[in-house]
């Protein structure tokens, strides 16, 4: 089978060997968890508990306010010690519920689901997914229930399960694909039922041949197929993945719905299955702890709200020279200033290494590498200039809002210009201006 792919993109070093062959281990629940009430962009959830309350494992402690706000659940049983602002891996402090763990893991509900999960109606599936606070596990943490509710006028034809994990170092999805392939496919089947799609396609990069073979075997029981994709960054970016598999372009400013597609990350598919079949809320996830700066890199199952410190200690701690700490992948992850931040639903990895000294920034020599590698076919250097000189009209016309911040341009830039930074500045300014106008 010939591996499918999209145009442009880059080949950063993978470094997946640190953890690719390491089976998922469970991190013992910590003594204290801090669960942020907001774990994605949008509005924070409304707290349902207050200081002094006793909560159980999986109990809903924050209610999603709007469509784009997911509920959050307790990841331990114990006592609420505060509901207040706390460090958040996104950067700025966010209201969070802090709970001391009584070590009992009293389940909130122990009613067993007796009905066959595949006999649920689309609405029931969506409801259960929403109730369980499931969000996209790839990083952006978009509420999954929204993704399972296509508008009436946009029929969905295909569910794509994203098993690319194109970010270097990360292997959490890969391990899940090896260790729980049935759950992923069952979750995909539920997503198919919920959206009324006809078929499932699982896209796997060709550096994960083992997972590919397992899935080819397991897919027999489902109405779907497995597609091999070229190992290239950002193969797992939604729009590029859809193009690679179906040769369809999501229109600018549009959603995969517009081309009859819903994309779910492999980890999310498993979370959907857990939510619908067992009513299990999303209170834990698999993350890769990796990089040269980690003593013993591992894939671990972690309760949401666990401080990074506990996670890193479980992996032998940091090496002395480790001076960069990242949540997510090396291409799109967010740097952390402290280990005192909680794991959130979108934490796909915790990485650390000794960062090279920052290189000098040169003027753009117009080599065109950013243009040649942009998966959205933008002209990053030109956009950066427009933003720098505050020509936002030109920046918008040249597509700054279409930038997915994958970082290919900046990775390739020989002048070491912080191109992605300028894209973000441009996007923020334009969006703020628009909000002001509409207000």
């Amino acid at each position: 089978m010939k591996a499918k792919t999209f145009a442009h993109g880059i080949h950063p070093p993978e470094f997946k060997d640190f953890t690719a062959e390491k089976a998922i281990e469970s991190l013992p629940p910590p003594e204290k968890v801090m669960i942020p009430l907001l774990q994605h962009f949008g509005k924070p959830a409304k707290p349902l508990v207050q200081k002094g309350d006793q909560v159980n494992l999986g109990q809903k402690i924050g209610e999603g306010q709007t469509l784009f706000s997911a509920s959050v659940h307790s990841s331990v049983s114990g006592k609420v010690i505060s509901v207040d602002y706390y460090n958040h891996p996104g950067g700025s402090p966010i209201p969070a519920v802090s709970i001391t763990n009584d070590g009992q893991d009293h389940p909130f509900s122990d009613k067993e689901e007796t009905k066959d999960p595949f006999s649920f109606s689309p609405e029931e599936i969506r409801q259960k997914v929403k109730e369980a606070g499931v969000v996209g596990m790839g990083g952006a943490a978009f509420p999954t229930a929204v993704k399972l509710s296509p508008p009436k006028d946009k029929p969905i034809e295909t569910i794509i399960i994203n098993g690319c994990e194109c970010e270097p170092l990360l292997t959490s999805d890969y391990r899940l694909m090896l260790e729980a392939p049935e759950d992923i496919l069952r979750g995909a089947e539920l997503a198919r039922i919920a959206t009324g799609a006809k078929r499932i396609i699982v896209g796997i990069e060709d550096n994960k041949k083992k997972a590919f073979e397992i899935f080819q075997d397991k897919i027999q029981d489902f109405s779907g197929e497995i597609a091999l994709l070229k190992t290239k960054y950002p193969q797992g970016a939604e729009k590029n993945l859809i193009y690679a598999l179906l040769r369809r372009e999501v229109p600018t400013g549009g959603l995969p719905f517009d081309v009859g597609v819903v994309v779910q990350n492999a980890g999310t598919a498993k979370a959907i299955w857990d939510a619908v079949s067992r009513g299990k809320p999303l209170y834990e996830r698999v993350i890769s702890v990796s990089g040269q700066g980690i003593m013993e890199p591992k894939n671990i199952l972690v309760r949401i709200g666990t401080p990074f410190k506990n996670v890193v200690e479980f992996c032998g701690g940091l090496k002395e020279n480790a001076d960069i700490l990242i949540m997510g992948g090396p291409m799109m992850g967010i740097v952390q200033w402290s280990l005192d931040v909680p794991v959130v639903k979108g934490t796909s990895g915790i990485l650390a290494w000794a960062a090279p000294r920052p290189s000098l920034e040169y003027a753009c020599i117009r080599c065109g590498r950013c243009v040649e590698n942009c998966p959205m076919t933008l002209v990053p250097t030109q956009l950066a200039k427009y933003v720098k000189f505050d020509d936002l009209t030109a920046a918008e016309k040249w597509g700054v809002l279409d930038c997915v911040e994958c970082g290919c341009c900046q990775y390739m830039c020989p002048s070491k210009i912080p191109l992605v930074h300028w894209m973000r500045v441009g996007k923020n300014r334009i969006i703020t201006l628009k909000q002001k106008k509409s207000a």
Partner: protein
Amino acid sequence: MTNNTFILQSSPHFKDKDSVPKIMYTVIASLAPVVAASLYFFRFKALALLLSCIVTCLVTEALFLWLRKKPLHSLRDGSAVITGILLAMTLPPSLSLEFAIIGAVVATTIGKQVFGGLGYNIFNPALVGRAFLQTAFPVAMTTWIPPAALKIQTATFATPLGNLRFQDAIAEGTLTPLKDLFTGNVGGCLGETSAFALILGALFLLSRRVIDWRIPLGILLSLTAFTGSFWLANPEKYASPLFHILAGGFLIGAFFMATDMVTSPIIPRGTWIYALGIGIVIGLIRLFGGFAEGVMYSILFMNAFVPLLNRYTRPRIFGERSKG
């Protein structure tokens, strides 16, 4: 647990190892065969011109950086050395050194620093220097000597293109054989004579992906189409496209001058227009212009369009619906 402190930066956190100085030094390395050929064919004259150009470019650049209160470390980026080498390679071997020094000063100041230094200039600096010399000292710039390896003692000697254009070489039957053009055993500027050395360097640049293949290919295609159609119509009067490709400054221009990143377009569609334009202008000048050679002016001419090309060739954004 150690008390690590962490660096804060925005993503991406991985970066390619390539950098501006690395690119510049790759270009310098790619010029080694050409420089070697010029030293072989023109001996001490080549060495003297080469050194005076490089040193003058570096000194002028340093002076300007100091005047502009800029850090001197950008001297090390290698771009001034490239300008020096490229300028030297486009000079006639018999040129006296003071002219070369004037050319190098003009190249660095008017060609580069007045615009703000590396990355901001519109025209290829080496060609700006050469164009200035060509205009200011036309006789010195068009006096040619035979290469040392030919072992002929004449005061002057025509270049293959000059021979073709002004001495009716085809009718006289004195057109330079293609074999000599290929090895470089002909008259001409220091670095333009040996097609073999130029192609060697060009292949190196292409393999390291330092230059955009579209530029030499585009120039080649349009020059071949242009000169080829005249040649097919009247081979008695016009030389073949192969002759035009191997003779004069075509190869050094197409692979080392027109491909200068700073002064060529950044968007592929613009790059094609730029390259095709250069080929046609070369053909126009060589066949109908007042000069035997047109590579320099055609590149400078198309350099002028680069900002416009960059502005008007916005690529279709992924997912953008075509209008209408």
